[in-house]
Protein backbone atom coordinates (compact mmCIF):
# COMPACT_ATOMS: atom_id res chain seq x y z
CA UNK A 1 0.00 0.00 0.00
CA UNK A 2 1.36 3.37 -1.00
CA UNK A 3 0.11 6.03 1.38
CA UNK A 4 -0.42 9.71 0.77
CA UNK A 5 2.71 11.78 0.98
CA UNK A 6 2.95 14.40 3.67
CA UNK A 7 2.27 17.50 1.58
CA UNK A 8 -0.86 15.91 0.11
CA UNK A 9 -2.18 15.00 3.54
CA UNK A 10 -1.45 18.39 5.08
CA UNK A 11 -3.05 20.30 2.22
CA UNK A 12 -6.17 18.12 2.08
CA UNK A 13 -6.63 18.45 5.84
CA UNK A 14 -6.17 22.22 5.52
CA UNK A 15 -8.83 22.29 2.79
CA UNK A 16 -11.11 20.26 5.05
CA UNK A 17 -10.49 22.70 7.92
CA UNK A 18 -11.25 25.63 5.63
CA UNK A 19 -14.55 24.07 4.52
CA UNK A 20 -15.36 23.18 8.13
CA UNK A 21 -14.84 26.81 9.15
CA UNK A 22 -17.46 28.15 6.70
CA UNK A 23 -20.47 27.77 9.04
CA UNK A 24 -18.53 29.69 11.70
CA UNK A 25 -18.01 32.61 9.31
CA UNK A 26 -21.48 32.78 7.85
CA UNK A 27 -24.87 31.64 8.96
CA UNK A 28 -26.18 32.11 5.43
CA UNK A 29 -28.08 28.93 4.55
CA UNK A 30 -27.74 29.79 0.87
CA UNK A 31 -23.93 29.52 1.02
CA UNK A 32 -24.09 26.27 2.97
CA UNK A 33 -26.63 24.88 0.51
CA UNK A 34 -24.36 25.61 -2.44
CA UNK A 35 -21.47 23.95 -0.64
CA UNK A 36 -23.57 20.86 0.17
CA UNK A 37 -24.49 20.59 -3.50
CA UNK A 38 -20.87 21.09 -4.52
CA UNK A 39 -19.68 18.35 -2.14
CA UNK A 40 -22.29 15.96 -3.57
CA UNK A 41 -20.94 16.71 -7.06
CA UNK A 42 -17.43 16.04 -5.75
CA UNK A 43 -18.51 12.60 -4.48
CA UNK A 44 -20.20 11.86 -7.80
CA UNK A 45 -17.25 12.92 -9.93
CA UNK A 46 -14.76 11.10 -7.67
CA UNK A 47 -16.83 7.92 -7.75
CA UNK A 48 -17.17 8.16 -11.54
CA UNK A 49 -13.39 8.36 -11.75
CA UNK A 50 -12.98 5.22 -9.65
CA UNK A 51 -14.01 2.97 -12.53
CA UNK A 52 -13.91 5.18 -15.59
CA UNK A 53 -10.79 7.18 -14.82
CA UNK A 54 -8.71 4.20 -13.74
CA UNK A 55 -9.77 1.75 -16.45
CA UNK A 56 -10.73 4.21 -19.19
CA UNK A 57 -14.15 2.55 -19.49
CA UNK A 58 -16.38 5.60 -19.63
CA UNK A 59 -19.64 5.35 -17.81
CA UNK A 60 -22.23 7.68 -19.35
CA UNK A 61 -25.01 6.61 -17.01
CA UNK A 62 -23.68 7.54 -13.60
CA UNK A 63 -26.92 9.39 -12.86
CA UNK A 64 -28.69 6.03 -12.67
CA UNK A 65 -26.81 5.21 -9.47
CA UNK A 66 -27.14 8.73 -8.09
CA UNK A 67 -30.87 8.65 -8.70
CA UNK A 68 -31.25 5.12 -7.36
CA UNK A 69 -29.58 6.14 -4.09
CA UNK A 70 -31.65 9.30 -3.82
CA UNK A 71 -34.93 7.51 -4.53
CA UNK A 72 -34.07 4.62 -2.18
CA UNK A 73 -33.51 7.00 0.73
CA UNK A 74 -36.51 9.14 -0.20
CA UNK A 75 -38.83 6.17 -0.60
CA UNK A 76 -37.86 4.60 2.72
CA UNK A 77 -38.49 7.92 4.42
CA UNK A 78 -41.70 9.01 2.73
CA UNK A 79 -43.38 5.60 2.44
CA UNK A 80 -42.25 3.90 5.64
CA UNK A 81 -41.08 6.79 7.79
CA UNK A 82 -37.62 5.26 8.05
CA UNK A 83 -35.11 7.79 9.25
CA UNK A 84 -32.97 9.43 6.56
CA UNK A 85 -29.87 8.23 8.43
CA UNK A 86 -30.82 4.66 7.52
CA UNK A 87 -31.56 5.81 4.00
CA UNK A 88 -27.99 7.05 3.71
CA UNK A 89 -26.81 3.58 4.79
CA UNK A 90 -29.15 1.67 2.49
CA UNK A 91 -28.71 3.88 -0.61
CA UNK A 92 -25.13 2.75 -1.36
CA UNK A 93 -26.19 -0.87 -0.99
CA UNK A 94 -29.01 -0.40 -3.50
CA UNK A 95 -26.84 1.50 -5.98
CA UNK A 96 -23.90 -0.85 -5.50
CA UNK A 97 -26.08 -3.88 -6.21
CA UNK A 98 -27.47 -2.16 -9.31
CA UNK A 99 -23.91 -1.39 -10.38
CA UNK A 100 -22.91 -5.04 -10.10
CA UNK A 101 -26.03 -6.19 -11.96
CA UNK A 102 -25.55 -3.70 -14.79
CA UNK A 103 -21.80 -4.24 -14.87
CA UNK A 104 -22.13 -7.98 -15.18
CA UNK A 105 -23.30 -7.98 -18.80
CA UNK A 106 -22.06 -4.55 -19.93
CA UNK A 107 -18.46 -4.48 -18.69
CA UNK A 108 -17.56 -7.31 -21.05
CA UNK A 109 -18.41 -5.06 -23.97
CA UNK A 110 -15.49 -3.68 -25.93
CA UNK A 111 -14.93 -0.27 -27.45
CA UNK A 112 -17.60 2.39 -27.05
CA UNK A 113 -20.35 -0.10 -26.25
CA UNK A 114 -19.94 0.13 -22.50
CA UNK A 115 -20.48 3.89 -22.69
CA UNK A 116 -23.57 3.38 -24.86
CA UNK A 117 -24.94 0.62 -22.63
CA UNK A 118 -24.66 2.75 -19.51
CA UNK A 119 -26.22 5.72 -21.28
CA UNK A 120 -29.14 3.54 -22.35
CA UNK A 121 -29.48 1.97 -18.90
CA UNK A 122 -29.85 5.38 -17.29
CA UNK A 123 -32.32 6.48 -19.97
CA UNK A 124 -34.41 3.38 -19.22
CA UNK A 125 -34.25 4.12 -15.50
CA UNK A 126 -35.35 7.71 -16.12
CA UNK A 127 -38.30 6.58 -18.26
CA UNK A 128 -39.29 3.90 -15.75
CA UNK A 129 -39.19 6.48 -13.03
CA UNK A 130 -41.75 8.57 -14.95
CA UNK A 131 -43.91 5.57 -15.86
CA UNK A 132 -44.02 4.18 -12.33
CA UNK A 133 -45.33 7.46 -10.98
CA UNK A 134 -47.44 5.76 -8.31
CA UNK A 135 -44.22 4.70 -6.58
CA UNK A 136 -41.78 7.37 -7.73
CA UNK A 137 -44.02 10.40 -7.87
CA UNK A 138 -43.37 10.84 -11.61
CA UNK A 139 -42.29 14.34 -12.68
CA UNK A 140 -42.83 15.64 -9.17
CA UNK A 141 -40.50 13.13 -7.59
CA UNK A 142 -40.73 12.09 -3.98
CA UNK A 143 -40.95 15.11 -1.77
CA UNK A 144 -41.58 15.65 1.91
CA UNK A 145 -38.50 13.88 3.25
CA UNK A 146 -38.16 14.61 6.94
CA UNK A 147 -34.90 16.48 7.52
CA UNK A 148 -32.30 14.58 9.41
CA UNK A 149 -30.44 17.39 11.07
CA UNK A 150 -31.80 20.21 13.16
CA UNK A 151 -30.05 22.91 11.18
CA UNK A 152 -28.47 23.45 7.79
CA UNK A 153 -25.01 23.71 9.35
CA UNK A 154 -25.42 20.37 11.16
CA UNK A 155 -26.34 18.72 7.87
CA UNK A 156 -23.47 20.53 6.17
CA UNK A 157 -21.02 18.98 8.66
CA UNK A 158 -22.49 15.53 8.03
CA UNK A 159 -22.14 15.89 4.25
CA UNK A 160 -18.65 17.33 4.57
CA UNK A 161 -17.51 14.46 6.81
CA UNK A 162 -19.01 11.74 4.64
CA UNK A 163 -17.74 13.44 1.48
CA UNK A 164 -14.19 13.79 2.76
CA UNK A 165 -14.02 10.23 4.09
CA UNK A 166 -15.51 8.86 0.84
CA UNK A 167 -13.06 10.67 -1.40
CA UNK A 168 -10.11 9.72 0.84
CA UNK A 169 -11.27 6.09 0.80
CA UNK A 170 -11.57 6.10 -3.01
CA UNK A 171 -8.15 7.71 -3.35
CA UNK A 172 -6.63 5.02 -1.10
CA UNK A 173 -8.33 2.36 -3.22
CA UNK A 174 -6.86 3.93 -6.36
CA UNK A 175 -3.40 3.88 -4.78
CA UNK A 176 -3.72 0.28 -3.61
CA UNK A 177 -2.64 -2.79 -5.56
CA UNK A 178 -6.22 -3.14 -6.79
CA UNK A 179 -5.96 0.37 -8.25
CA UNK A 180 -2.75 -0.63 -9.96
CA UNK A 181 -4.44 -3.67 -11.49
CA UNK A 182 -7.28 -1.43 -12.72
CA UNK A 183 -4.79 0.88 -14.42
CA UNK A 184 -3.18 -2.15 -16.03
CA UNK A 185 -6.61 -3.27 -17.23
CA UNK A 186 -7.13 0.18 -18.70
CA UNK A 187 -3.85 -0.14 -20.54
CA UNK A 188 -4.22 -3.64 -22.02
CA UNK A 189 -6.97 -6.00 -20.99
CA UNK A 190 -5.75 -8.98 -23.00
CA UNK A 191 -2.36 -8.88 -21.34
CA UNK A 192 -3.97 -8.80 -17.92
CA UNK A 193 -5.96 -11.89 -18.82
CA UNK A 194 -2.75 -13.50 -20.02
CA UNK A 195 -1.30 -12.86 -16.55
CA UNK A 196 -4.29 -14.73 -15.04
CA UNK A 197 -5.91 -11.55 -13.70
CA UNK A 198 -9.67 -11.95 -13.46
CA UNK A 199 -10.36 -8.77 -15.41
CA UNK A 200 -14.15 -9.02 -15.28
CA UNK A 201 -14.25 -9.52 -11.52
CA UNK A 202 -12.07 -6.46 -10.97
CA UNK A 203 -14.12 -4.27 -13.28
CA UNK A 204 -17.48 -5.40 -11.93
CA UNK A 205 -16.45 -5.03 -8.27
CA UNK A 206 -15.06 -1.57 -8.94
CA UNK A 207 -18.19 -0.58 -10.82
CA UNK A 208 -20.22 -1.67 -7.79
CA UNK A 209 -18.05 0.49 -5.49
CA UNK A 210 -18.29 3.40 -7.92
CA UNK A 211 -22.08 3.05 -8.05
CA UNK A 212 -22.32 2.70 -4.26
CA UNK A 213 -20.52 6.01 -3.67
CA UNK A 214 -22.70 7.66 -6.32
CA UNK A 215 -25.77 6.37 -4.47
CA UNK A 216 -24.39 7.66 -1.18
CA UNK A 217 -23.99 11.11 -2.73
CA UNK A 218 -27.50 10.82 -4.19
CA UNK A 219 -29.00 10.09 -0.77
CA UNK A 220 -27.09 13.00 0.79
CA UNK A 221 -28.34 15.30 -1.95
CA UNK A 222 -31.93 14.13 -1.53
CA UNK A 223 -31.54 14.69 2.20
CA UNK A 224 -30.56 18.29 1.53
CA UNK A 225 -33.25 19.00 -1.08
CA UNK A 226 -35.78 16.94 0.92
CA UNK A 227 -36.84 15.64 -2.50
CA UNK A 228 -35.75 12.96 -4.95
CA UNK A 229 -36.49 14.32 -8.41
CA UNK A 230 -36.25 12.58 -11.81
CA UNK A 231 -33.55 15.09 -12.80
CA UNK A 232 -31.20 13.01 -10.70
CA UNK A 233 -31.62 10.16 -13.21
CA UNK A 234 -31.17 12.32 -16.30
CA UNK A 235 -28.38 11.85 -18.82
CA UNK A 236 -27.69 15.57 -18.49
CA UNK A 237 -26.39 14.94 -14.97
CA UNK A 238 -24.29 11.99 -16.17
CA UNK A 239 -22.65 14.11 -18.82
CA UNK A 240 -22.04 16.98 -16.42
CA UNK A 241 -20.14 14.52 -14.22
CA UNK A 242 -18.10 13.18 -17.15
CA UNK A 243 -17.16 16.76 -18.05
CA UNK A 244 -16.19 17.52 -14.46
CA UNK A 245 -13.97 14.45 -14.37
CA UNK A 246 -12.28 15.40 -17.65
CA UNK A 247 -11.66 18.92 -16.46
CA UNK A 248 -10.26 17.64 -13.17
CA UNK A 249 -7.98 15.06 -14.71
CA UNK A 250 -9.08 11.46 -15.04
CA UNK A 251 -7.63 8.70 -12.91
CA UNK A 252 -6.59 10.85 -9.97
CA UNK A 253 -9.87 10.72 -7.97
CA UNK A 254 -9.14 13.98 -6.17
CA UNK A 255 -8.82 15.84 -9.49
CA UNK A 256 -12.43 15.22 -10.57
CA UNK A 257 -13.63 15.78 -7.00
CA UNK A 258 -11.89 19.15 -6.68
CA UNK A 259 -12.96 20.18 -10.19
CA UNK A 260 -16.56 19.25 -9.40
CA UNK A 261 -16.43 21.29 -6.22
CA UNK A 262 -15.16 24.35 -8.10
CA UNK A 263 -17.41 23.96 -11.14
CA UNK A 264 -20.50 23.55 -9.00
CA UNK A 265 -19.58 26.76 -7.19
CA UNK A 266 -18.74 28.59 -10.43
CA UNK A 267 -22.11 27.68 -11.97
CA UNK A 268 -23.81 29.10 -8.93
CA UNK A 269 -21.81 32.32 -8.79
CA UNK A 270 -22.13 32.91 -12.54
CA UNK A 271 -25.79 33.65 -11.95
CA UNK A 272 -24.80 37.28 -12.20
CA UNK A 273 -24.40 36.73 -15.96
CA UNK A 274 -28.10 35.97 -16.22
CA UNK A 275 -28.96 34.05 -19.34
CA UNK A 276 -25.31 34.15 -20.49
CA UNK A 277 -24.36 32.01 -17.51
CA UNK A 278 -24.09 28.69 -19.32
CA UNK A 279 -22.32 30.35 -22.24
CA UNK A 280 -19.62 31.62 -19.90
CA UNK A 281 -19.49 28.26 -18.16
CA UNK A 282 -19.12 26.51 -21.52
CA UNK A 283 -16.31 28.85 -22.53
CA UNK A 284 -14.44 28.15 -19.31
CA UNK A 285 -14.74 24.41 -19.95
CA UNK A 286 -13.59 24.77 -23.56
CA UNK A 287 -10.53 26.75 -22.53
CA UNK A 288 -9.60 24.26 -19.79
CA UNK A 289 -10.01 21.23 -22.05
CA UNK A 290 -8.12 22.95 -24.86
CA UNK A 291 -5.20 24.04 -22.73
CA UNK A 292 -4.72 21.02 -20.50
CA UNK A 293 -4.48 17.43 -21.57
CA UNK A 294 -4.88 15.92 -18.11
CA UNK A 295 -7.31 18.41 -16.63
CA UNK A 296 -6.23 21.35 -14.52
CA UNK A 297 -6.26 20.03 -10.97
CA UNK A 298 -3.52 17.41 -10.98
CA UNK A 299 -1.01 19.30 -13.21
CA UNK A 300 -1.58 22.47 -11.20
CA UNK A 301 -1.04 20.65 -7.93
CA UNK A 302 2.16 18.99 -9.21
CA UNK A 303 3.44 22.37 -10.38
CA UNK A 304 2.64 23.96 -7.05
CA UNK A 305 4.32 21.15 -5.13
CA UNK A 306 7.39 21.53 -7.33
CA UNK A 307 7.50 25.22 -6.40
CA UNK A 308 7.06 24.54 -2.70
CA UNK A 309 9.74 21.88 -2.59
Amino acid at each position, binding site marked *: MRFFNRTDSVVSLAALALLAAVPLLTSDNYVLGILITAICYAIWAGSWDLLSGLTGRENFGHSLFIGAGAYAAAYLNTAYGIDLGWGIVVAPLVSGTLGALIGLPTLRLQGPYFALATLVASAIAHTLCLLLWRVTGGEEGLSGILPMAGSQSDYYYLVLTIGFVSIAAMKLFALSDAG*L*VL*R*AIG*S*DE*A*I*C*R*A*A*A*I*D*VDAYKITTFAFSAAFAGLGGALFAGYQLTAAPDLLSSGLSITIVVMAYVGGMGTIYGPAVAALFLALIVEYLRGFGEYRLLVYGLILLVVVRLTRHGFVDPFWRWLKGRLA
Partner: protein
Amino acid sequence: MSIDLLTVRNVVAGYGRIRVLDDVSLDLRQGELLAVLGANGAGKTTLLRCISRMMDVASGDILLEGRSLKGVAAPELVRLGLCHCPEGRRLFPDLPVRVNLELGGFIHTADANAAMMAKVHALFPKLAERAGQRAGTLSGGEQQMVAIGRALMGRPKVLILDEPSVGIAHGLKVQIFEAVRKIADEGISVLIVEQDAEALIELADRLYVMEQGRIVAEGPPRMIRDNGSLKAAYLGM
Protein backbone atom coordinates in the same frame (compact mmCIF):
# COMPACT_ATOMS: atom_id res chain seq x y z
CA MET B 1 13.55 -40.35 -22.60
CA SER B 2 11.96 -36.98 -23.04
CA ILE B 3 8.41 -36.22 -22.04
CA ASP B 4 5.99 -34.31 -24.24
CA LEU B 5 4.88 -31.26 -22.36
CA LEU B 6 2.72 -29.76 -25.04
CA THR B 7 1.12 -31.69 -27.87
CA VAL B 8 -0.71 -30.20 -30.81
CA ARG B 9 -2.66 -32.95 -32.52
CA ASN B 10 -4.15 -32.54 -36.00
CA VAL B 11 -5.37 -29.04 -35.37
CA VAL B 12 -7.59 -27.36 -37.92
CA ALA B 13 -8.57 -23.74 -37.27
CA GLY B 14 -9.49 -20.57 -39.10
CA TYR B 15 -11.45 -17.36 -39.17
CA GLY B 16 -14.93 -17.82 -40.53
CA ARG B 17 -14.69 -19.92 -43.66
CA ILE B 18 -11.01 -19.22 -44.15
CA ARG B 19 -8.92 -22.13 -43.00
CA VAL B 20 -5.62 -20.95 -41.54
CA LEU B 21 -4.32 -24.11 -39.90
CA ASP B 22 -4.67 -27.31 -41.85
CA ASP B 23 -3.98 -30.46 -39.85
CA VAL B 24 -1.08 -29.12 -37.80
CA SER B 25 0.66 -31.42 -35.33
CA LEU B 26 3.69 -30.76 -33.20
CA ASP B 27 5.11 -31.69 -29.85
CA LEU B 28 7.21 -29.76 -27.38
CA ARG B 29 9.46 -31.69 -25.04
CA GLN B 30 10.72 -30.88 -21.55
CA GLY B 31 13.41 -28.19 -21.53
CA GLU B 32 13.46 -27.86 -25.28
CA LEU B 33 13.80 -24.75 -27.42
CA LEU B 34 11.50 -25.35 -30.31
CA ALA B 35 11.22 -22.89 -33.17
CA VAL B 36 8.40 -22.59 -35.66
CA LEU B 37 9.58 -20.79 -38.76
CA GLY B 38 7.72 -19.59 -41.78
CA ALA B 39 6.88 -16.59 -43.90
CA ASN B 40 4.19 -14.05 -43.14
CA GLY B 41 0.74 -15.56 -43.30
CA ALA B 42 1.93 -19.12 -42.81
CA GLY B 43 -0.33 -19.47 -39.76
CA LYS B 44 2.28 -19.19 -37.03
CA THR B 45 0.47 -16.64 -34.89
CA THR B 46 -2.84 -18.44 -35.37
CA LEU B 47 -1.20 -21.60 -34.06
CA LEU B 48 -0.05 -19.74 -30.94
CA ARG B 49 -3.48 -18.19 -30.49
CA CYS B 50 -4.98 -21.67 -30.53
CA ILE B 51 -2.46 -22.95 -28.00
CA SER B 52 -3.06 -20.06 -25.60
CA ARG B 53 -6.84 -20.41 -25.94
CA MET B 54 -7.42 -17.01 -27.48
CA MET B 55 -9.06 -18.88 -30.31
CA ASP B 56 -10.95 -22.17 -30.61
CA VAL B 57 -9.83 -25.03 -32.80
CA ALA B 58 -12.31 -26.38 -35.34
CA SER B 59 -10.99 -29.91 -34.93
CA GLY B 60 -8.04 -31.65 -33.38
CA ASP B 61 -6.80 -31.13 -29.86
CA ILE B 62 -4.10 -29.40 -27.83
CA LEU B 63 -2.77 -31.12 -24.72
CA LEU B 64 -0.69 -29.68 -21.91
CA GLU B 65 0.97 -32.46 -19.88
CA GLY B 66 -1.50 -34.87 -21.37
CA ARG B 67 -4.52 -32.77 -20.41
CA SER B 68 -6.75 -31.36 -23.14
CA LEU B 69 -7.01 -27.59 -23.10
CA LYS B 70 -10.49 -27.63 -24.59
CA GLY B 71 -12.80 -25.49 -22.49
CA VAL B 72 -9.96 -24.07 -20.40
CA ALA B 73 -10.26 -20.27 -20.06
CA ALA B 74 -7.23 -18.24 -21.11
CA PRO B 75 -6.44 -16.89 -17.61
CA GLU B 76 -6.47 -20.45 -16.25
CA LEU B 77 -3.56 -21.37 -18.52
CA VAL B 78 -1.08 -19.46 -16.37
CA ARG B 79 -2.01 -21.61 -13.40
CA LEU B 80 -1.51 -24.70 -15.54
CA GLY B 81 1.97 -23.48 -16.43
CA LEU B 82 1.64 -21.90 -19.86
CA CYS B 83 2.61 -18.27 -20.39
CA HIS B 84 2.28 -16.43 -23.67
CA CYS B 85 4.45 -13.46 -24.56
CA PRO B 86 2.53 -11.85 -27.42
CA GLU B 87 3.81 -10.19 -30.54
CA GLY B 88 4.45 -6.48 -30.28
CA ARG B 89 5.45 -6.63 -26.61
CA ARG B 90 2.32 -4.93 -25.27
CA LEU B 91 3.64 -3.57 -22.01
CA PHE B 92 1.85 -1.22 -19.66
CA PRO B 93 3.70 1.87 -20.91
CA ASP B 94 2.79 4.17 -18.02
CA LEU B 95 3.80 1.75 -15.29
CA PRO B 96 7.37 1.21 -14.11
CA VAL B 97 9.34 -1.79 -15.33
CA ARG B 98 9.22 -3.39 -11.88
CA VAL B 99 5.41 -3.17 -11.77
CA ASN B 100 5.11 -4.56 -15.30
CA LEU B 101 7.04 -7.58 -14.14
CA GLU B 102 5.09 -7.93 -10.90
CA LEU B 103 1.81 -7.99 -12.78
CA GLY B 104 3.09 -11.03 -14.68
CA GLY B 105 3.41 -12.82 -11.35
CA PHE B 106 -0.07 -11.75 -10.29
CA ILE B 107 -1.13 -15.23 -9.15
CA HIS B 108 2.03 -15.84 -7.10
CA THR B 109 3.05 -14.65 -3.63
CA ALA B 110 5.23 -11.59 -3.12
CA ASP B 111 8.11 -13.82 -1.93
CA ALA B 112 7.89 -16.04 -4.99
CA ASN B 113 7.83 -12.93 -7.17
CA ALA B 114 10.90 -11.45 -5.49
CA ALA B 115 12.80 -14.68 -6.14
CA MET B 116 11.65 -14.82 -9.75
CA MET B 117 12.42 -11.13 -10.23
CA ALA B 118 16.03 -11.84 -9.18
CA LYS B 119 16.22 -14.53 -11.86
CA VAL B 120 14.79 -12.19 -14.48
CA HIS B 121 17.31 -9.53 -13.48
CA ALA B 122 20.10 -12.08 -13.77
CA LEU B 123 18.89 -12.91 -17.26
CA PHE B 124 18.42 -9.27 -18.29
CA PRO B 125 20.67 -7.10 -16.08
CA LYS B 126 19.38 -4.00 -17.91
CA LEU B 127 15.98 -4.48 -16.32
CA ALA B 128 17.46 -4.19 -12.84
CA GLU B 129 18.97 -0.82 -13.82
CA ARG B 130 15.68 0.34 -15.27
CA ALA B 131 13.38 -1.05 -12.56
CA GLY B 132 11.87 2.32 -11.69
CA GLN B 133 11.62 3.68 -15.21
CA ARG B 134 8.31 3.84 -17.08
CA ALA B 135 8.20 0.91 -19.49
CA GLY B 136 7.11 3.13 -22.37
CA THR B 137 10.40 5.03 -22.26
CA LEU B 138 12.54 1.93 -22.89
CA SER B 139 14.05 1.02 -26.24
CA GLY B 140 12.31 -1.65 -28.32
CA GLY B 141 14.81 -4.33 -27.31
CA GLU B 142 14.55 -3.47 -23.63
CA GLN B 143 10.76 -3.54 -23.88
CA GLN B 144 10.98 -7.01 -25.36
CA MET B 145 13.11 -8.05 -22.38
CA VAL B 146 10.39 -6.76 -20.06
CA ALA B 147 7.76 -8.68 -22.03
CA ILE B 148 9.72 -11.93 -21.77
CA GLY B 149 10.49 -11.23 -18.12
CA ARG B 150 6.83 -10.60 -17.43
CA ALA B 151 5.88 -13.94 -18.96
CA LEU B 152 8.58 -15.64 -16.86
CA MET B 153 7.12 -14.11 -13.70
CA GLY B 154 4.12 -16.39 -14.21
CA ARG B 155 6.56 -19.30 -13.57
CA PRO B 156 5.67 -21.20 -16.71
CA LYS B 157 6.57 -24.74 -17.65
CA VAL B 158 5.92 -23.73 -21.22
CA LEU B 159 6.87 -20.28 -22.47
CA ILE B 160 5.45 -19.13 -25.77
CA LEU B 161 7.18 -16.30 -27.62
CA ASP B 162 5.61 -14.67 -30.64
CA GLU B 163 8.17 -12.94 -32.88
CA PRO B 164 10.34 -11.44 -30.15
CA SER B 165 12.82 -10.00 -32.67
CA VAL B 166 10.44 -7.75 -34.60
CA GLY B 167 11.73 -4.19 -34.85
CA ILE B 168 14.76 -4.67 -32.65
CA ALA B 169 18.37 -3.68 -33.29
CA HIS B 170 20.60 -6.57 -34.25
CA GLY B 171 22.80 -6.49 -31.16
CA LEU B 172 19.84 -6.65 -28.79
CA LYS B 173 18.27 -9.38 -30.90
CA VAL B 174 21.28 -11.59 -30.29
CA GLN B 175 21.12 -10.87 -26.57
CA ILE B 176 17.47 -11.78 -26.48
CA PHE B 177 17.94 -15.02 -28.35
CA GLU B 178 20.82 -15.96 -26.05
CA ALA B 179 18.58 -15.30 -23.06
CA VAL B 180 15.89 -17.50 -24.58
CA ARG B 181 18.46 -20.27 -24.94
CA LYS B 182 19.35 -19.88 -21.24
CA ILE B 183 15.68 -20.06 -20.27
CA ALA B 184 15.35 -23.39 -22.08
CA ASP B 185 18.58 -24.64 -20.52
CA GLU B 186 17.07 -24.01 -17.11
CA GLY B 187 14.32 -26.48 -17.91
CA ILE B 188 11.53 -24.23 -19.17
CA SER B 189 10.26 -25.44 -22.53
CA VAL B 190 10.14 -22.64 -25.07
CA LEU B 191 8.04 -22.50 -28.20
CA ILE B 192 9.19 -19.60 -30.31
CA VAL B 193 7.75 -18.33 -33.55
CA GLU B 194 9.98 -16.26 -35.78
CA GLN B 195 10.47 -14.82 -39.21
CA ASP B 196 14.15 -14.19 -38.61
CA ALA B 197 15.12 -17.79 -39.24
CA GLU B 198 18.85 -17.30 -39.51
CA ALA B 199 19.40 -16.30 -35.90
CA LEU B 200 17.31 -19.14 -34.55
CA ILE B 201 18.72 -21.97 -36.57
CA GLU B 202 21.88 -21.80 -34.49
CA LEU B 203 20.08 -21.83 -31.16
CA ALA B 204 17.02 -24.04 -31.42
CA ASP B 205 16.94 -27.72 -30.52
CA ARG B 206 14.40 -28.52 -33.18
CA LEU B 207 12.61 -26.64 -35.92
CA TYR B 208 9.28 -26.82 -37.65
CA VAL B 209 8.73 -25.02 -40.91
CA MET B 210 5.21 -23.84 -41.73
CA GLU B 211 3.84 -22.90 -45.09
CA GLN B 212 0.24 -21.96 -45.84
CA GLY B 213 -1.15 -23.51 -42.69
CA ARG B 214 0.74 -26.78 -42.87
CA ILE B 215 3.90 -28.12 -41.30
CA VAL B 216 6.16 -28.81 -44.28
CA ALA B 217 9.34 -29.83 -42.51
CA GLU B 218 10.45 -30.87 -39.07
CA GLY B 219 13.85 -31.75 -37.69
CA PRO B 220 17.05 -30.63 -36.03
CA PRO B 221 18.61 -27.36 -37.22
CA ARG B 222 21.23 -29.32 -39.16
CA MET B 223 18.54 -30.74 -41.44
CA ILE B 224 17.26 -27.34 -42.42
CA ARG B 225 20.70 -25.82 -42.66
CA ASP B 226 21.83 -28.50 -45.08
CA ASN B 227 18.69 -28.39 -47.16
CA GLY B 228 19.28 -25.59 -49.61
CA SER B 229 15.98 -25.91 -51.43
CA LEU B 230 13.99 -25.82 -48.18
CA LYS B 231 15.81 -22.69 -47.12
CA ALA B 232 15.24 -21.01 -50.44
CA ALA B 233 11.62 -22.02 -50.79
CA TYR B 234 10.29 -21.30 -47.35
CA LEU B 235 12.68 -19.16 -45.41
CA GLY B 236 14.04 -16.83 -48.06
CA MET B 237 17.62 -17.50 -47.09
